[in-house]
C-alpha cells in the first residue's frame, strides 16, 4: 500500500469507474453540505436568535436538511456504489450497463437537490427520515430503480457462482430499500393513510432504515474490507449468516416508541426486538475480533482498516444503547430526550459513515488507478473518529440528565431543557470535527477522481504528440 501508483485497473474495476465516480463524487459533496446544515442546526442551542431571521436555516428546516443530505445525499449513493463494486468483484464480472447506472446516479443527485430545495423552502413532508417532498421522492425512486436493475443484472450474470456474505448483505439492502421507501412514499405522501396509522408507517420506515438497512449496507463493506486488509479470511461464514438473519428478523420490528399512542402491543414488540438486536451485535463483536484481531497485526494508526473496525464497534455500541433505551423502565427516562439523538448519531457517523469511508478509500484508488497518500486518509480518520464520539457521547449524557428531570414533574420544564444544553454545546465540537473531516474527505475523493482525469488527459496529450502519420514515418 505504499506504492504511489497501482497496477492498471482490471476490466472489472474499469467497468465500475464512471458510475462510481458519479456516485462517490456527488455523495462526498452532499456530505460536506449536510455537515454545514448540521452546524447551522446546532447553532440554535448556542444562540437561538443567531439564525432566527433566516427561514431557510431555522432549526426545523436545517435539521431535516441535514438528515436528508446525510441519508439520501451521502449514504444511499455511497452504499450503492460500494455494493455495485462488491457485486462485480465478487461475481467476477464487469458491471452491466455502466452508462445507464451513471445516468441513474446523476438523476439521483438531481433528486437529492430537488428534495433539499423543497425542505428548506418549507415543503418538507413532515415525516422523519423521509422529509423529501413527493416530487423529489419520485425522482429518487426512478433513479434508484434505474441503477438497481443493472445491479441485479450484474449479480445474476456473475461468473463466480459461489456467494460471499457481502453479496447477501448488498442484495438484501437493495431489496429492503426498495420496499420500505416505496411503502413509505406511497402510504405517507401519495395516498396518505389516516390518523395514527401514518405515525406507525413513518416509525416502521425509520426503524427499518436505521436498524436494518444501515447495518446491511454497512456490514457488506465490513465483511469484505476487514478480511482483505487484515490478511485473514472471514472468521466464520455461519456467524455472518447468523448476523444476516437475526438483523433482518429482529431489526425489522424496531421503531415504535414505547409510549406512542398506538396499540400497546406495537411498542412491546419493538422493545423486545430492540433487546433481541443485542444477539447480532454480540455475534458481530466475535466476528470482528476473530477476523481482524490477533498478534501479528500491523498496528492501526488511522488507515482504511481503522475506519472499518471502528465502524463495526460503533454499530455494536449503538445497538446495545438502543436495547437499553428500549427497555420500558429506561424508556421513561430516555424517550423524548437527546439520548435517542446520540444513539442514532453514533450509528450514522460512528458506524455507517466510517464504514463507507473505508469502502471508498479501498475502492476508489483501484478504479482510478491512483494511490491516495496514507497521510490524507489518516488526517480524515483523526477528524472523523473523535468527531463522531464527541458528537454522540455528550448527547447521551445530556439526554439522561434531561430525561431524569423530565420524568420528575416537580422540575420546571425550562430546567429540563437547560440540563442538556451544555452537553449539546459540547457536541457541537464533535460536529465541527466531522464537518472538517467531511471537507478532507471531499478533497480526497475529488483529488482521486480529478487525478484520474488528469492522467487521462496527459496520456491523450502524449499520444497526440507522439502520433505521426504513417506516410511520414515510413
Amino acid at each position, binding site marked *: 500500500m505504499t506504492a504511489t501508483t497501482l497496477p492498471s485497473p482490471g476490466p472489472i474495476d474499469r467497468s465500475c469507474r464512471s458510475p462510481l465516480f458519479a456516485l462517490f463524487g456527488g455523495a462526498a459533496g452532499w456530505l460536506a453540505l449536510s455537515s454545514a446544515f448540521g452546524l447551522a442546526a446546532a447553532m440554535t442551542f448556542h444562540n437561538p436568535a443567531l439564525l432566527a431571521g433566516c427561514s431557510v436555516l431555522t432549526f*426545523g428546516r436545517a435539521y431535516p436538511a441535514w438528515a436528508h443530505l446525510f441519508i439520501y445525499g451521502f449514504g444511499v449513493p455511497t452504499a450503492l456504489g460500494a455494493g455495485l463494486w462488491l457485486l462485480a468483484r465478487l461475481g467476477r464480472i464487469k458491471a452491466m450497463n455502466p452508462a445507464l447506472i451513471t445516468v441513474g446516479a446523476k438523476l439521483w443527485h438531481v433528486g437529492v437537490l430537488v428534495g433539499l430545495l423543497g425542505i428548506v423552502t418549507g415543503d418538507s413532508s413532515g415525516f422523519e427520515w423521509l422529509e423529501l417532498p413527493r416530487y423529489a421522492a419520485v425522482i429518487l425512486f426512478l433513479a434508484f430503480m434505474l441503477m438497481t436493475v443493472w445491479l441485479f443484472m450484474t449479480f445474476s450474470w456473475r461468473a463466480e457462482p459461489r456467494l460471499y456474505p457481502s453479496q447477501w448483505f448488498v442484495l438484501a439492502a437493495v*431489496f429492503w430499500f426498495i420496499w420500505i421507501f416505496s411503502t413509505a412514499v406511497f402510504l405517507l405522501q401519495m395516498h396518505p393513510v389516516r390518523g395514527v396509522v401514518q*405515525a406507525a408507517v413513518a416509525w416502521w420506515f425509520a426503524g427499518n432504515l436505521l436498524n436494518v438497512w444501515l447495518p446491511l449496507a454497512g456490514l457488506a463493506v465490513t465483511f469484505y474490507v476487514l478480511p482483505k486488509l487484515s490478511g485473514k479470511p472471514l472468521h466464520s461464514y455461519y456467524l455472518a449468516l447468523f448476523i444476516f438473519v437475526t438483523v433482518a428478523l429482529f431489526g425489522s420490528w424496531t421503531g415504535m416508541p414505547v409510549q406512542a399512542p398506538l396499540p400497546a402491543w406495537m411498542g412491546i414488540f419493538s422493545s423486545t426486538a430492540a433487546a433481541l438486536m443485542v444477539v447480532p451485535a454480540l455475534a458481530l463483536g466475535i466476528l470482528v475480533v476473530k477476523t481482524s484481531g490477533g498478534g501479528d497485526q500491523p498496528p492501526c494508526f488511522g488507515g482504511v482498516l481503522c475506519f472499518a473496525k471502528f465502524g463495526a464497534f460503533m454499530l455494536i455500541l449503538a445497538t446495545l444503547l438502543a436495547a437499553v433505551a428500549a427497555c420500558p423502565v429506561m424508556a421513561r427516562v430516555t424517550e423524548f430526550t437527546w439520548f*435517542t439523538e446520540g444513539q442514532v448519531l453514533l450509528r450514522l457517523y460512528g458506524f455507517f459513515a466510517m464504514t463507507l469511508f473505508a469502502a471508498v478509500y479501498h475502492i476508489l484508488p483501484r478504479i482510478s488507478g491512483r494511490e491516495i497518500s496514507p497521510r490524507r486518509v489518516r488526517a480524515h480518520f483523526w477528524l472523523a473518529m473523535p468527531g463522531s464520539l464527541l458528537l454522540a457521547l455528550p448527547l447521551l449524557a445530556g439526554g439522561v440528565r434531561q430525561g431524569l428531570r*423530565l420524568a420528575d414533574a416537580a422540575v420546571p420544564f425550562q430546567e429540563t431543557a437547560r440540563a442538556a444544553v451544555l452537553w449539546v454545546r459540547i457536541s457541537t465540537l464533535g460536529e465541527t470535527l466531522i464537518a472538517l473531516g467531511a471537507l478532507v474527505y471531499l478533497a480526497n475523493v475529488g483529488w482521486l477522481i480529478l487525478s484520474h482525469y488528469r492522467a487521462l488527459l496527459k496520456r491523450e496529450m502524449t499520444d497526440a504528440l507522439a502520433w505521426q502519420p504513417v506516410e511520414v514515418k515510413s
Partner: protein
Amino acid sequence: MKSGSLVFLTAFVALAFSWTGFVLVPQLQLGRLEAAKTVPAGDAYPVARSGQARQGAEVYRSLGCVYCHSRQIGQQGTTVEVTLTSVGTNAANVLSAIQKAAPHLAATASLASVPQVLGQVADTALADDAVTAIAEAGGEATVAILPDGPDIRRRWGRRRSVAQDYLYDPVVQPGIRRFGPDLTDAGATRASAEWQLLHLYAPKTVVPDSTMPGYPFLFVERKIGKTPAPDALPLSGTFAPPDGHEVVPTEEAQALVAYLLSLRADAPLYESPVTPPPAPATNGVAVATK
C-alpha cells in the same frame, strides 16, 4: 447461503412479516377509525378544525416544529377521587354511610365543609359504591377520574393520547423529541393569541430563559400608517421596533397561532377516561390538577 434466491427469500419473509405487523395490521385496526363519542356527554370527537387552523397545520409542518415539540401524552395509572358535595340534612348519617362503604375515606372526613375531597379509591366500582351509599344517607358526592404521570402533572394534557386525537390531522406528527414542551393541550394552557404571537416573534419576550428560536420572518415590520394596526404586537424594551414602526403578524403567523390554539385533547373517551375540570373559570391559566 448458496444462491441468490435464498437471500431474497430470507429478506422477503423477514420484511413481509414486519410489514404485515406494523403497516397492514394497524391499517386494518385503525385505518377506518370513525369519530368517537365523548363519555358520558356523547359529543362527537374529534371536531374538524377551522380553515385557518388547517392552514396553520401546514405552517407547523413546514417550519419543522415537530423536531422540538412532541404531541403525545403518556400516562402512568389513574386515580379515582371521591368528592363530597353535600351532606344533606343528617351529617352523622352520611359519615356512618361513608364508614361502611369505604372506611379509609371516612378517616379524614370532617364534614365541616363541602365540597370536600374525601380521598382516593382503587377503582370506579368502589367509588360508585361509596357515592350510592352517601346518596342513600341523604348526601351527595361526585367521582372524578384523574389520570396521572409526569406529562399530566406538567399539565401538558389531561389524559393519555389515543388514536382518536389524531384523526383529523392531515399530517400526523406525534414527535419524539421534547427539546420544547409537549403541545398536546397548548390551546388550553396558553389560550391567548397575543401570547402565542409574541412567543413566535421573539420567545424571550414572554419566556425569558427560552431556548426556542424566534420566527421573525412570520412577521412584517413596517411604518405605522395613519393609525396603528390593531394586530400590531405590544413589544417593548430591546424587542421593540424602531420608533414609528410596528410589527404585525403575517397570515402565516395568524394561521399557525389558530392551529396552536386548536390543540386540545381533553375530551373524555371510553378508552381514555378523564373527568374534565368542573368550571371554565380556570380557562387560559395553567393550573395543576393536583
